[in-house]
């Protein structure tokens, strides 16, 4: 990296608060996930039934599997302490999100109407949360989505949520985080190539990445766009197209097995030696799912949410403890979905405990919701804040460069390269107009970036 340029660029990036390396945390916590409370009033012993829909089969099990494990770990820990308020054990009904949106909606109805769940959690697909959110509102079932991160959920589908919350960062943060990561590490890139899956996720990544990078680095030019269709296995034509346009940087939103097939084919063409590569989801699944031949120095995205090496064990013991317990239970490391599902259940626990302290006995949903709105919790990923106006969770966005470190037989993040971005710097503030309300951008975040981010000077 050009050190002089890097420092100059950091000056510009400073206004976004992005930090590099281990400097991301230092403040005291807002609470503790495992703090014990003495319940007030009479608490029934009846178990709390929780519904959890996530991908248990198919390609997206790569995301849903770790999420399910995060949920299970939280459930086991809470139950080992006697359950919620020391009395009510958690019982979870799992269902497979791979059945599709219509089936998921039916299953949520069944869970509520037949099984009488008190809490609904999970959901990975952004196609599903906009369908399930309104149903959760209609059924009045308290819902903590741990992903399904489309901006559309609270921008449009459930603009005034009461029962619906979400803990992971919104999707627009994915592309924006990759842009800030790229600008931080490679401030001299100008010629940009893009490789995105040819459906809505890829379009969202591309739009927000280019928008943000255009503000961060003056004079960027998109020299190549590749949109492999669903099911593409041979990336040769895309790779040769990218190479022929001689970009400085490739941004890739292809994920899972598609990303693995791509990088292995790209290695044969020496692509990683010829340009920088930024991804949004390379490290998004099971951490051990990426092979030993993965190149170092790739900006390896985690959906802008969490990687088990950050915050570091010394500086954030909550993460250290989580990773250790998770590894002990499952003999693997957690992903961002693990963190999301884990903290969703603890967020519920915290809200129940606070409501109990206020009203005594088992609190009703109104009281729990009141405690969730504006709640803060110390999560393995750092501070998580639930905004009261839109029920969206916000935590600092992160990304980092891939590296092979001793102790791991799969690539992880170079801890010196981790870029942590205060989430307020990359998401639209409360009450920013939503799409269709004075602007027609695809997301409130896009409109806010366009209108408020200063453009870097040439």
């Amino acid at each position, binding site marked *: 990296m050009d050190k002089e340029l890097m420092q100059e660029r950091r000056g510009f990036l400073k206004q976004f608060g992005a930090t590099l390396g281990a400097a991301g945390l230092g403040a005291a916590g807002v609470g503790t996930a495992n703090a014990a409370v003495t319940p007030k009033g009479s608490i029934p012993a009846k178990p709390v039934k929780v519904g959890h829909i996530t*991908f*248990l*089969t*198919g*390609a*997206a099990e790569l995301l849903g*599997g770790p999420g*399910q494990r995060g949920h*299970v770990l939280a459930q086991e820990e809470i139950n080992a302490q006697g359950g919620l308020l020391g009395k009510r054990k958690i019982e979870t*009904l*799992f*269902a497979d999100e*791979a059945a*599709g*949106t219509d089936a998921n909606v039916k299953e949520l109805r069944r869970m509520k109407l037949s099984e009488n769940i008190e809490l609904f959690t999970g959901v*990975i*697909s*952004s*196609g*599903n949360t*906009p*369908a399930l959110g309104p149903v959760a509102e209609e059924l009045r079932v308290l819902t903590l989505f741990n992903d399904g*991160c*489309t*901006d*559309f959920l609270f*921008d449009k589908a459930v603009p005034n949520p009461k029962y619906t919350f979400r803990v992971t960062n919104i*999707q627009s943060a994915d592309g924006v985080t990759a842009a800030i990561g790229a600008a931080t590490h490679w401030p001299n890139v100008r010629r940009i190539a893009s490789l995105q*899956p*040819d*459906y*809505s*996720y*890829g*379009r*969202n990544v*591309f*739009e927000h990445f*280019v928008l943000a990078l255009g503000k961060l680095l003056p004079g960027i030019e998109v020299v190549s*766009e590749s*949109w492999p*269709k*669903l*099911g593409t*296995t041979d990336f040769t034509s895309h790779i040769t197209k990218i190479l022929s346009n001689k970009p400085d940087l490739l941004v890739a939103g292809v994920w*899972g*097995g*598609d990303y*693995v*097939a791509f990088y292995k084919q790209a290695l044969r063409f020496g692509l990683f030696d010829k340009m920088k590569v930024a991804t949004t*989801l390379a490290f998004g699944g099971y951490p*051990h*799912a990426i*092979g030993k031949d993965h190149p170092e120095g790739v900006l390896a995205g985690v959906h802008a949410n969490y990687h088990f090496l950050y915050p570091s064990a010394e500086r954030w013991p909550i993460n250290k403890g989580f990773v250790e317990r998770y590894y002990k239970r*499952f*003999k*693997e*490391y957690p992903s961002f979905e693990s963190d999301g599902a884990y903290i969703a259940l603890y967020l519920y626990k915290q809200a129940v405990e606070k409501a109990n302290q206020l009203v005594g006995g088992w609190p009703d949903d109104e009281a729990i919701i009141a405690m969730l709105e504006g709640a803060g919790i110390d999560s393995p990923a750092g501070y998580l804040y639930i905004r009261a106006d839109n029920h969206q969770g916000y935590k600092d966005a992160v990304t980092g460069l891939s590296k092979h470190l001793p102790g791991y037989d799969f690539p992880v993040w170079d801890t010196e390269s981790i870029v942590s971005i205060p989430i307020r710097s990359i998401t639209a503030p409360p009450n920013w107009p939503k799409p269709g309300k004075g602007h027609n951008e*695809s*997301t409130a975040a896009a409109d806010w970036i366009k209108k408020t981010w200063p453009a870097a000077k040439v």
Partner: protein
Amino acid sequence: MNSARKSVLAAGLALLGVAHAGHEFPFYPSFYPQEITVEALDARSAAERLAKGTLHAYAGGEIAAPADGTKSGTVTSLGGYVVATFEGGGCADARGLKDALGEGQVWHPYPVTPFHADYLHHADRAEAARAGAVADKREKKARIEIVEVSALMAKAGARYNGWSGPPWVRQGWFHAYLLLTPPVSDAAIEETLRRLVRGEHRSLEERVNLERKLVALLQRGCERVVLGYTERRERYGVDYSQGVENVGYGALEGLASPIFPRTVKLRDFPWNGWLNVAAPAPPSSAWNPIVGGFGDAFGRVVWSALSDPAFLPAPHGGGWIENRVSASVEESPKPIAVPEDALFTAGRGKMAASRIVYRVRNSAFHDGTPMSVADLLYGYAFAAAWATDPGIAQATALARERLKGVRPLRVETETLAFGEDKLSYEVPVIEVYLDAGPGADAATVAPPWSTLPWHLLALLEEGARRGYFKLSEVDPVRNVAIVQRLGMLARELEERAYVPPALISHVNAKEARERYRRLREFHAAHGHWLVTNGPYRLSRWDGTKAVLGAFRDPSYPKGLGGFNAYAVPLKAHVTRIDQRAYGAEVHTETEWLERLGREVRIARGSFAQRLAERLTSAGALPAPVCHYLLVGPDGAVAAAGAVRAGGKGACRLEFTRTEGRPGTRLVVAAVLEDSAANAPIRIVPWGD
């Protein structure tokens, strides 16, 4: 950014998205590896390649255990029968031949083996036969041979165009019949067989007694005696970066089974990747897709990935898994009237014993042409028209005998949606009338299905009419002369816009011309004519290697991970049997898979505990099912059944008191997810 990129990916299929609801699309058509290469390797070369990690699996052959046992795994399936043919002597001599068995041969002097899903029905008799071994040093005149189970199943009936063959083709009693049928027809044997295949029994007990009777009748001659069986041990690589996992196989077929390409996953890829498979010898059997081709291990591996049957054989069970069709069987004690407008039936007033309504999952063929009802109907028309070909006649005999009518009802659309990203499938609904049916397996007899497009069948039959080849022998890939001749013929059919007479009312000239054009383009791209609608496409055959590419077309309705439940045959175990007033209470434990990081292991424990954890189950956790027989002192089965375990993992078997006479024995096995093959069996005395 490209504005409003909306992609129409195939006819009738749309994957539409707008930026507001996007996320990773979670459904991937076809199965894990993006490419499968099949080649022939001798055992030594295969062992070297496996050790290097450049070969992932060796199908159909055995190789020595590697020095580093941690880098390979083994699947074990039934290899063949050890059969003795005597000149005089017979049964008595056979009991003394235990020591004559060679290395790797298992003493099991009974023609139904633990690898058969119906072994429970014979377990007491097989145990008695094993116990009857005697030390006998006398020299005996016997010819001992190994009858490969793959050859036996091929003899049982060649598969026609994605159909399943006789529903009982994987049953142990049927294999016994194929092995031991006397050269001179035996009326008792044939009558018992007839009752079994016609389903002429009123209860499970009666059916099991018929099966036992058939095997007993077959064994009474003693000229030809089963001494035991061999196991087929096939190796695969498990090294993390270069190996595979999720290796499905069949109890009878081993790795050369349809479940293998539908489950196997490269360890270094969540999906995709390049899988290398080898067989011990180059292909020798014709790659005939219509009937009876792909007979050797090489061919079976290739065809199991290229073709898509209507039903897949349950890899460790006796039944069939719905693959491209789902079926609803209506059986009636009274004859069912066949509608007058039904196809493939003649005359008014026809009656049938059963009506089956199929929902068919259409897709594109590998040449890009979309499946239609015409393709499904032509499977029947072709079978009827070419019954003059002995191979086709034999393979379709049962279907032609029982089929009483076919009627397309309507075409529906099914959609798999994740928000606004959608895949839509065309689903023809077709009813089929049969004159008899062996219970639930009736649906497999004559399904509305063809893994080959009608235009390929039309091309091949035109070649046969002109005397270029016999349909049951044609190889449209490896026979260079035929491949060339088919090229000229395809051009001619395209120019003529040829539509087979049976499809005149379903296909117009424009559609026909387009079909032949696409077929010729496929040939130009791949050098052969083997177009199917299966999960893998034959990308190329270079004379030594077959390269199969995943058909990730959005129209293909099965997705990766869809058959994971069949990848590892999990067992249940009977831990205790208690006598109760109502009969027996059978306690079980169950196995499950634990995926912990990079390791996968089978764990075993209480079903109740598992139910409480519900960690890996979507919806209901599969409960053990207790299959049982109560065998009277006379050897007759007095009671038989299957009972699902309750929440505590115990099965409640209810018998009447008269079924517990002295000398009675209870034979019971707990079975998980239809994996009856090699299920642990308990045999205990029962009654007063």
